[in-house]
């Protein structure tokens, strides 16, 4: 394996962060959209890719984060970026509450229940639950974020905000993947029964994957709310969950590079295909089938981790 992850990122990241300087705002905004979906994909990847749980309702957690931020910002005027951890926490607690009773469900039963949770959340938002979600109108007038007195407004400014967060996420998730927790999730995906018999609390770790995944989706929701300044229930439909799920499987479930590539393809390609106008989603559907047949494991499937042994220091390097 000649691929060197560290070297790749060292080369790619600076180039990528210079790209907006030569792009017009529209394409930068496309990149921003890709960044948001990359975040959502990475968060869902913890659940689908690492733990192998069939979750088609991730938009619910995204929605909880976005709405928490929007409500607190518009009613109490708390700066939106300060709400980032609050949004994550709210989504995480929500996940803990809903996932607990259903975590023992297997495969496709879990799938329909997550779809159900997603739909219940969306319907609750539309019906203006507790009188705070604004119904179908959603919530508008969310203040633009500020960093050191500078208002984040243009696509270019958001690019650095979003992709910095993506970069931090990628960095942290590599570490998570390569740890006791990350391994535990992989064992569960491979063989639940054997994992349990090895002393891994399967239900507990499934819950952890849901809670951490939801927390990140909630934070992505916060950024989404900050960027749009208005959020409404249709941004959190079943279709959004499908997109997140698809980009993971397409890119390579369980692989961070795969998810990033998946986000580029799923969100970027329809923009490039815009010229096909009405037929673009037709091509998109056909491309999904073709890519799965061409690479059933995803474009970049996860590589087995390499451990440096007997060296005594600094383990977990990928070589």
């Amino acid at each position, binding site marked *: 394996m000649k691929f060197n992850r560290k070297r790749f990122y060292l080369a790619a990241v600076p180039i990528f962060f210079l790209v907006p300087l030569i792009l017009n705002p529209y394409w930068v905004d496309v990149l921003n959209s890709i960044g948001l979906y990359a975040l959502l994909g990475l968060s869902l990847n913890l659940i689908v890719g690492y733990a192998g749980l069939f979750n088609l309702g991730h938009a619910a957690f995204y929605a909880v984060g976005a709405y928490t931020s929007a409500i607190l910002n518009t009613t109490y005027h708390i700066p939106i970026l300060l709400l980032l951890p609050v949004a994550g926490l709210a989504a995480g607690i929500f996940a803990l509450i809903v996932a607990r009773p259903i975590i023992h469900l297997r495969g496709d039963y879990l799938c329909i229940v997550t779809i159900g949770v997603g739909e219940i959340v969306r319907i609750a938002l539309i019906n203006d639950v507790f009188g705070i979600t604004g119904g179908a109108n959603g919530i508008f007038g969310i203040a633009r974020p500020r960093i050191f007195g500078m208002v984040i407004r243009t696509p270019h400014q958001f690019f650095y905000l979003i992709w910095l967060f993506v970069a931090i996420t990628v960095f942290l998730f590599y570490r998570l993947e390569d*740890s*006791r927790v990350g391994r535990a999730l992989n064992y569960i995906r491979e*063989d639940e029964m054997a994992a*349990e018999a*090895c*002393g891994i*609390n399967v239900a507990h770790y499934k819950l952890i994957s849901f809670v951490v995944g939801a927390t990140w989706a909630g934070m992505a929701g916060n950024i989404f709310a900050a960027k749009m300044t208005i959020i409404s229930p249709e941004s959190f439909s079943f279709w959004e969950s499908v997109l997140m799920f698809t980009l993971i499987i397409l890119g390579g479930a369980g692989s961070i590079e795969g998810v990033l590539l998946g986000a580029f393809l799923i969100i970027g390609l329809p923009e490039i295909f815009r010229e096909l106008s009405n037929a673009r989603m037709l091509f998109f559907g056909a491309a999904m089938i073709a890519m799965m047949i061409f690479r059933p494991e995803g474009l970049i499937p996860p590589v087995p981790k390499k*451990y440096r042994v007997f060296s005594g220091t600094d*383990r977990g390097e990928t070589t």
Partner: protein
Amino acid sequence: MALLSVQRLTKSFGGLLAVHNVSFDVFSGEIVGIIGPNGAGKTTVFNLITGIYKPDQGEIVFDQHSIVGKAPHDIVKLGIARTFQTIRLFSNLSVLENVMAGAHCRMSSGVLGAMLRLPGQRREEREKIEEAMELLGLVGLQDFYDYLAGSLSYGNQRLLEIARALATHPRLLILDEPAGGMNERETEELIKLIGKIRDKGVTVLLIEHDMNVVMKICERIVVLEYGSTIAEGTPEEIQSNPRVIEAYLGTDEDE
């Protein structure tokens, strides 16, 4: 005082009585074998001990604590580890990662520790990897540490399962047909390995069809037939027990 005491254990599946009133004790430092014809309920007894099934009746006492109703992972943490009759490795993960699965319950770092990579977490990882490599050395798989588990030979996969179980620091190791699918040379190695494991202070309880293995290493043997205990004793006693002979002559011994 017995390390493990199984008392009047009963379990049925939809009317079929799989285990009926089985009782036996395992003492610290012993190697005990469970034998019996196919369908005698041996694996079910293991599944009951390790918490995968809940018994209908009966008591399982490990180190003076009842473990009935405890979740499998809690039982592992108490010190009972097992291997499976049908090998259940994480075949898409590396050999080393498989052993690390066993080490999981003896580690403590969580999500935040992993993300921040705190010094304690790094030390723990380093120690456990070293330990896992030692265990691979014990079963003779250290050179394969970065192979995919699924790519190992059948015999090596059985050895890897043992290494994985040992990584949980068990006081009682339960082996379900450890010699299944092994050739003669491998079986000889296995017998030596089980001896070594016992010498490290781990009590061993095993199911085995290969009578050669059972008679060679077991100090005591429990015989099951149709879900019930029909005999218990030293290998010599078992070999001369008329009921055991009858049971074995009456059925086909091979799988």
